């Protein structure tokens, strides 16, 4: 799909690198100040390639969630820049960020992914409707079919199993064909079978439709589904694995002392 270019006058021109879906340079996030200051992110430079499935890993408190929040425009960084394609997120106002999230970013959270008052179909099309857009029926059918939700579209979230709820969340994330889907511990609340199903679906969306997916997880076997694993420790990059397996991820994590 064509990506609207949102540049703000006076900002540095977008770099020519086109293969990067998301890019962060010198990203810092500091809570508090002075001696009590906590550096959740202490200067992170990272690039996520388009049509790739990347996992962000790290021990608790390593800053992996904060990194994802900043990359997704959910939180503002203290310093540094985030680029989504050619758009500098750090210069956008709240409403611009909101619209951008609506159109160009998909989310899958660990829990509380769906609005309880809406049924599955309404939840799936919610971000598009918020922007007053009509979902493409063919794409909707394709996504729903792929995620096996056709029979569940009229159900409210509390009538769905945990795995089904996560599948609805993935469908919602894929609907607007976003630049990137961010998944935050998407299998954290699921049994292993449902977890594997969800990860397989994320992976197939990358392979089959070229969707870019960035996933935060602490589970090495979940990270093994990714094309690449970025390791984080104490707010800094601490490793980068290509074609990971559960074992190689576990080894790398041990190297971090986790």
């Amino acid at each position, binding site marked *: 799909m064509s990506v609207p270019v949102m540049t703000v006058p006076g900002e540095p021109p977008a770099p020519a690198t086109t293969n990067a879906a998301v890019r962060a340079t010198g990203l810092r996030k500091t809570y508090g100040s002075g001696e009590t200051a906590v550096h959740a992110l202490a200067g992170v430079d990272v690039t996520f390639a388009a049509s790739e499935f990347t996992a962000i890993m790290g021990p608790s408190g390593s800053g992996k969630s904060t990194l994802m929040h900043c990359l997704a425009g*959910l939180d503002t960084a203290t310093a540094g820049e985030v680029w989504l394609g050619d758009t500098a997120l750090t210069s956008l106002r709240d409403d611009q960020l909101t619209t951008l999230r609506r159109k160009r970013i998909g*989310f899958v*959270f660990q829990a*509380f992914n769906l*609005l*309880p*008052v*809406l049924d599955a179909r309404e939840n799936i099309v919610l971000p598009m*409707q918020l*922007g007053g857009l009509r979902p493409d029926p063919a794409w909707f059918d394709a996504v729903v079919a792929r995620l096996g939700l056709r029979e569940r579209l009229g159900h409210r979230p509390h009538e769905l199993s945990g795995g089904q709820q996560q599948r609805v969340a993935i469908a919602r994330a894929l609907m607007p064909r976003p630049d990137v889907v961010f998944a935050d511990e998407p299998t954290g609340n699921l049994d292993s079978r449902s977890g594997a199903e969800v990860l397989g679906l994320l992976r197939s969306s990358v392979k089959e439709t070229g969707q870019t997916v960035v996933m935060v997880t602490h589970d090495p076997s979940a990270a093994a589904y990714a094309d690449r694993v970025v390791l984080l420790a104490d707010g800094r990059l601490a490793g980068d694995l290509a074609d990971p397996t559960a074992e190689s991820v576990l080894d790398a994590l041990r190297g971090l002392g986790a």
Partner: protein
Amino acid sequence: MRTVVLTQLRTHAARLIASTLAVVIAVAFVVATLVLNETSRSTVLETVGARYVAAAAVVSAPYDRPFTDDDVTALAGVGSVGAVAPSYETGVQASVPGRSGSQYLMVESVADAPQLRWQELTTGRLPQGTGEVAVSDRARAEVGDVLTVSSYDDEGEETTAEATVTGIVDLRGDPEAGLYGRGFVTEDQARAWQAPEPLEVRIAAGPGFSADQVRADLAAAAPAEAVVRSGEEQAEKAAAAMMGDSTALAGVLLVFGTVAVVVAGLVIANTFAVLLAQRTRELALLRCVGATARQVRRSVLGEALATGLVASALGVALGIGLAAGVSALVGSNSAIPLSGVAVPLYAVLAGLGVGTVVTVLAAFAPARAATKVAPLAALRPVDTAPLRSRPGVLRLVLGLLMVVPGVLLLAAGVLTASVYVGLLGGVLSFLGVVLLAQRAIPPVVAAAGRLAGRFGGVPARLAAGNATRNPRRTAATATALLIGVTLTSAFVVGAASTKATAQAGLEAEFPTDVLVRSYDADLPASLNRTLLDVDGVQRTAGVIGGDVTGPDGEPAYVEAVDPAEAGAVLRSTDKIDLPSTGVAVLPEWAAETWSVQDGAPVTFTADGRTVTLQAKVTGFEQGVLVEPDALRSLLPDAGTSQLWLLLDDGDPDGQVSTVDAVTDAVAEADPEAQVTGVVTQRDQLNEVLDILLLVVTGLLGVAVVIALIGVGNTLALSVVERRQENGLLRALGLTRGQLRGLLAWEAVLVAGVAAVLGVLIGGAYGLTGVASVLGNQGEIVLDVPWLQVAAIVVVATLAGLLASVLPARRAARTSPVAAIAA
């Protein structure tokens, strides 16, 4: 547990603001009512009783045996008596220089002894001898004016004398001060102006004697029929005689106070229910670490008790302040007796008691629910399933059991025009409606939500879902508003219909705006022309009249008016029959005297001329009325006996000045003629009804305000509860504005539904109320003031919207991260 209660209060103080506010307002209302009532009572006591409080004793005689001079001398001769002041009272006509008419002055004697004088002067001094008078403000005279005073003796013989105004007496606070002017003169002057023997003697104690001693001595010395009271007793008695009506008013005010308290109770119960729902995990944790269910319940009730006490104390203070404000505003320049503020202890205690008890009672059900929290709830993740309330079957049955007979009683009240049956039915059915509202409101809100979702976009659709997620809470919130709106609109519709009915009744009773008539001679022919030129006079109709001979051979006075001309001038022809060609309208007494049946011929003669007309017997009280042609054929020179005037519609002040102008014009043309300005009477009645309507609407407004606090409160708590959800929406691309819109829609749905339902129910109550109250007083005119009714709906809905502003601001600040950081 006490530490827990206090810590809870400190941490959640902000969340308790709404219920505190509701209690404060309700208590303030009750206390202000009681304080104003007491203030008004003590003001009357001070003003009406002013003359008595300084007296050691007051001796009163029965009407048929007033005090003679000897009696007074005997009283004065009692050893312990210091001074006596017999009250000589009389009425005179006085004219003030520079003003045309004379006015009635009620004259009373001023005590000779300074210690028994109670009058306070704004300027000048009290009279010191005959030929001097001090007057009240109402007499509109100035110091130095020489009044011409006419007094009348028993035979009606008029005596005219002059009296110089020496001072103006301040009667502020006296509710009767505005009725007529008052004059204060020496005893001798009062007797010279034909004051009868006194019925009352005020007595001051001599030096060194106690009031009790004086009363004991007087009891022995006074005539057998006389009554001896202390000054205070007499003051209380006089005040009570005047206050009869105002206690009824206080009763009405307290009914509205009760409404405010009930509404506040609903809001409080709601607040606590939601507060506790939010703290489920907290309470469960308490249970986990070993608190018993009883301890949890006591902690919740303790919280309610503390909130209730603090809020009630604030409410009492606010109520007293409010009363003082009203008193200061109203008391200084009106007939309403209010000055300063008198705070009775019972008002303070009632305020504290009502507020605290209502708060604790309202918290009772939520407290019970809180004890049912299982300790394990602390460990479970947040339940995202929508809350469902069990359908209250008991409530439904109870509601129907009250509504059905209530409505039947209401119908019976209307049909039999019986106020008490209607009232009983009204109260019963309204309680039923409140119970049923809990069940009826959620589906109505859901339906309204579907409608709103059609054109309100995603926020409206989400709001519709949210508004019905917790049906019980939505119902309680809306019910509080519903009660206020129902009562307000019932009153507005009822008052409008009462006004219309009274208006129609008055117009039928007094169909002419202004009536000019002369009993002795014909009105000057030129007068009609003159009056038509008066500004504000729209049309006139002349009535001619003269003496003819009736069918029985006796003289009869017959009047004639052109029916077309008269019809155009009269406001109503409901209670007057106008003649038509060949017809004589005969009142029943005339038909009886002349033995004429309805429709039979009736013959009049005059100077040998004869006219025979068809009799039309009327049940209305009017004279014999024929067509002008018929009367002129008997009396060619019949003169004008009455002129009927129709004034321009418009502002009452303009009409009053028109009546004054007409009076002046008539007085100039024919000093004997009388002018009756009925229009001003109608205007006065309207004014009274309008003021009453305004006051009561304002009072009910208090209930609506409390209910709206409830709306804001419910929303605020929803915002807290849905923090994660709102965060998710923000993450998914809901802008801040859309989130505010979501909350606004929710408020509008709840408030709008409550307002519309309330107006419908209230309108029905207003109309049936009027029908059962006025049903036995002739024809009822039902009037629905659509504009005001629409205004109620709009105002309540907009106020609901306003109530959503703060919660919405808070919601909009929700960080998108909130969805993830659970």
